[in-house]
């Protein structure tokens, strides 16, 4: 099997990007993976010829910031646990375990911090990849933010519209149809069949739910 070029360094095994035929069922699959047919521009992977290092966020600062956050959390835990009593009073007090775990956690995080200076630096995420991730994360954050004011169903509809528009691989009518049908099916299953109340907004109130 032909392995597509791997952009991402420091990735666990089996993260090979495998281009299935999902997006273009009409295309011949081997032809796509073999690079015989041009891929749409959303797929950045094959853009880099072998040997060229893609620009991106390097790994070391990310390691450092993560370790620093963990160290900070460890201190918060220790402060809280000792505040409530982390000793031994006829058996462990309620801060005993968190405090011991907190010390271990602190030690591990400090070790990771030191370690991250010594490991070889590499690309954590290329800017292109970051762009891709934010194209999913952006609409997702919007979705969650809209649940409170608009209710889950309307927010879901907007989410699907925005997401599919950003991804831009589908025809407009299929986007609209998905955006309308998915919330309705969800409503039917959760609200009407299983009677699981989900957050509802002004639209549902207008319809009397």
């Amino acid at each position, binding site marked *: 099997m032909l392995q597509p070029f791997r952009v991402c360094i420091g990735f666990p095994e089996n993260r090979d990007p495998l281009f299935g035929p999902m997006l273009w069922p009409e295309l011949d699959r081997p032809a796509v993976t073999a690079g015989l047919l041009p891929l749409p521009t959303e797929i950045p992977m094959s853009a880099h010829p072998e040997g060229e290092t893609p620009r991106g966020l390097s790994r070391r600062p990310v390691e450092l910031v993560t370790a620093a956050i963990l160290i900070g959390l460890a201190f918060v835990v220790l402060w809280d646990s000792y505040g409530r009593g982390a000793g031994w009073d006829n058996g462990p007090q309620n801060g005993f375990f968190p405090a011991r775990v907190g010390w271990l956690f602190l030690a591990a995080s400090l070790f990771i911090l030191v370690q991250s200076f010594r490991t070889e630096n590499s690309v954590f995420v290329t800017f292109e990849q970051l762009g891709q991730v934010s194209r999913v994360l952006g609409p997702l954050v919007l979705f969650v933010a809209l649940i409170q004011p608009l209710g889950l169903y309307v927010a879901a509809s907007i989410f699907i519209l925005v997401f599919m528009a950003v991804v831009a691989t589908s025809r407009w009518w299929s986007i609209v149809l998905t955006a309308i049908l998915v919330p309705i099916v969800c409503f039917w299953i959760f609200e009407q069949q299983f009677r699981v109340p989900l957050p509802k907004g002004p639209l549902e109130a207008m319809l009397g*739910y």
Partner: protein
Amino acid sequence: MKQHWLAAGAALAAVTTPALAWEPTKAIEIVVPFSAGGASDQMARTMQGIIQKNNLTSQPIIVVNKPAAGGAEGMLDIQKAAGDPHKLITTSSGIFMTPMATKLPLNWTEYTPIAMMAQDSFVLWVNAKAPYQTAGDFMTAAKAASPPLKIGGTSSKREDNLIVFGMEKAGGVKFAYIPHTSGGQASTQLSGNHIDASTNNPAEDVANWRGGATRPICVFSEQKMTYSTPVADGKSWADIPTCASQGLNVTYQMLRGMFMPGKVTKEQQAFYVNLFKKVSETPEWKDYLARSALVPDYRDGEAFVTFLKADEEKHAKLMGEAGFTAK
């Protein structure tokens, strides 16, 4: 305002035409601030069954468990739902004790009381093979024991813990109180002889009593229970003596009732008062009471509020004495 509640309920039953009365327009949610399978959960699910079987409402009933943080999760949920007439909560004494023990901003006066359905007794249980026959035997053994005898119950700083504290005070002894996540767990631990006694409600231990694994010693109530149908070994609930009669002067009972969120209309409240009054009169409910050995004590309106006020005061005092109140 409170004095109108009873009047409103009575008026609803007698005068108002159905067209004027409030009716639920969507599914009614009963929040159980304990985990599935516990005594509160069983009560909620029994009521759900009764209401649906007898078609007492036009809308379905859903039971939702919100057990986190000792029931505070469910109580906060109801607090947040002020004005929502499709939510109910089952309560126990936890409605006073959780805020006292955790300092959470919760207060039952911000809810709308519907009705008290029953009171639950507490019984001192021991392993069937244990040598103790009376509360006196048990307390004498406790005085001599080192390390102290282990008494299991549900959660910390709650009903069971208060009773054990009361026993320590009354007998001048020390116990190791071991909190469990449910009464069922405490009962199993008792039948496995990992603890020396438990202070479970009758329903929580009845299975093991009938199975010959545990045995009741005495009931922490002022009067004996009234159910005289034999349960196990030819003994009935009514045969269990009160602890006070055996020299252990500790009495404690717990309310089991229904509340709804604050800021609801009187018509909405009246609907539920009426609903649960009907529930309390069904034969299925009476069966349930007998099976769980609950003390039948239906109260609504002013009678319920008076009871709540007195009970809260009692709990504030007990919790304070035991040092369970959060600083």
